[in-house]
């Protein structure tokens, strides 16, 4: 499309952000009373709802229970109204299964599963509105939900999707940028130790740029972690009133 540049000469992106700026993050914990943990997170126009059940007894096949740690079961799905065209198969398709597997891998790195042998932890994430950075928003929402459920974790898990345009890394891509042919990389990080839980990229990128891109992603994740930290502390403050006699 003529006139739509992903990065203008003055350094502004399609939605007016600078290259290192994140979208506005708003989140709420404890949105459902029935689930053990739940959270709602918005990052720009991408909205995700995460729900956690557990740890509880293994449901279904007992044989899949691990004797020394808990099994994390993730399911990623998109609401049929989340994309511009109505989604025909909200879950069960290849993309959702792959995302679920990625989420499982990410949370197995952070949740201290060895404290719950033979149990199961279920994490369900649903995208209510999809505007780019689906994986990252899911990870952020699920982190809040896991914290809300009181499941021990080593650290927060923050994720961000970054892209590379005109020798500049762009943090937190929106849908227009992702589909505009930008090499995008999704990274999930444990901010305090700087440990990477998952890196995912399926685009072409020159290997010289990889280091810069990962650095930019890690910085963006640390910014996200600050926001999530505030949300958690606010929630703690509000809900810990009168819990003691």
């Amino acid at each position: 499309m003529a006139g739509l540049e992903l990065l203008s000469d003055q350094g502004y992106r399609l939605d007016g952000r600078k290259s290192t700026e994140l979208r506005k993050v708003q989140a709420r914990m404890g949105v459902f009373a029935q689930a053990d943990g739940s959270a709602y997170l918005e990052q720009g126009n991408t909205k995700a709802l995460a729900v956690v059940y557990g740890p509880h007894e293994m449901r279904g096949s007992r044989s899949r229970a691990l004797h020394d740690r808990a099994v994390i079961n993730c399911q990623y799905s998109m609401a049929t109204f989340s994309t511009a065209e109505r989604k025909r198969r909200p879950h069960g398709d290849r993309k959702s299964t792959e995302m679920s597997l990625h989420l499982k891998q990410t949370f197995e790195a952070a949740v201290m599963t060895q404290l719950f042998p033979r149990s199961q932890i279920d994490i369900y994430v649903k995208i209510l509105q999809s505007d780019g950075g689906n994986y990252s928003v899911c990870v952020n929402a699920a982190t809040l939900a896991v914290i809300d459920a009181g499941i021990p974790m080593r650290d927060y898990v923050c994720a961000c999707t970054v892209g590379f345009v005109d020798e500049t890394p762009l943090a937190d891509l929106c849908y227009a940028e992702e589909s505009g042919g930008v090499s995008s990389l999704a990274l999930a990080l444990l901010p305090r130790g700087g440990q990477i839980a998952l890196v995912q990229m399926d685009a072409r990128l020159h290997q010289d740029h990889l280091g810069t891109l990962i650095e930019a992603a890690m910085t963006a994740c640390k910014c996200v972690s600050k926001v999530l930290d505030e949300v958690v502390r606010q929630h703690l403050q509000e809900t810990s009133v009168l819990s003691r006699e």
Partner: protein
Amino acid sequence: MAVDMRLPTVKNSMSLSHSAADRKDLVVPGDVITSDTGFMRGHGTYVDEDKLTASVAGEVQRVDKLICVRPLKTRFNGEVGDVVVGRITEVQQKRWKVETNSRLDSVLLLSSVNLPGGELRRRSAEDELTMREYLQEGDLISAEVQSVFSDGALSLHTRSLKYGKLGQGVLVQLSPSLIKRQKTHFHNLPCGASIILGNNGFVWLYPTPGQQEEEAGGFYTSLEPVSLSDREVISRLRNCLLALAAHKMLLYDTSVLYCYESSLQHQVGITRCSAEVQNVLYKEETKLY
């Protein structure tokens, strides 16, 4: 028929007049609690390079040299002697599996229940086959924790006459952290109903049983219709419990009773307890503190 509707709104957080925001030591996962190696680590913490770090979001509790972090919401962690209310999920060979809101289903061994008539004898093969006649999937029981298995599952027993299968009543499922630990968890409230405050967060409300000389060891569940006045009392109590839980107040017999008494002034519908009434009840409750 005209229906009353309310849209969801943000609840105004009501704080106590003497709310001490400073008294809390709140941490989030990854927060370093202390770098002093002299402390022992308790639940909710882990050691990362000689630094004691929190693994859950909650408040830090320090008992002498032991530091632990208590999360706001957690599954039930049972200890020996806790009274629990649970639901049978499975009937297996020689034992039942009971769901008690903990991280593994609890176990009720056949040898840990009272046989009809209170006999003390070895359980035979016939007893195994008639297990289902006593407790089936879906039944509610009250029991006590006898021991904890190595993987954390609880072993329950109903070896006293006050435990056993529960008959007619209302179950309210709340968070275990809201139940206060007391000497007894079975209360006969003066308002005309009885309550079992299970440590696992399950609260059972039932009409006070009439004169019963011989307690059949939890076998006998009365199927007589419950009177309307009893039902109203129980419904009101249930609403009180939900109101107290929504404001994160500790539940014990006195707090429930006070809440019930303050609610008598309001004519609430049997099944709903509106936010305004909840707030009023909350105000009355805070006078307790």
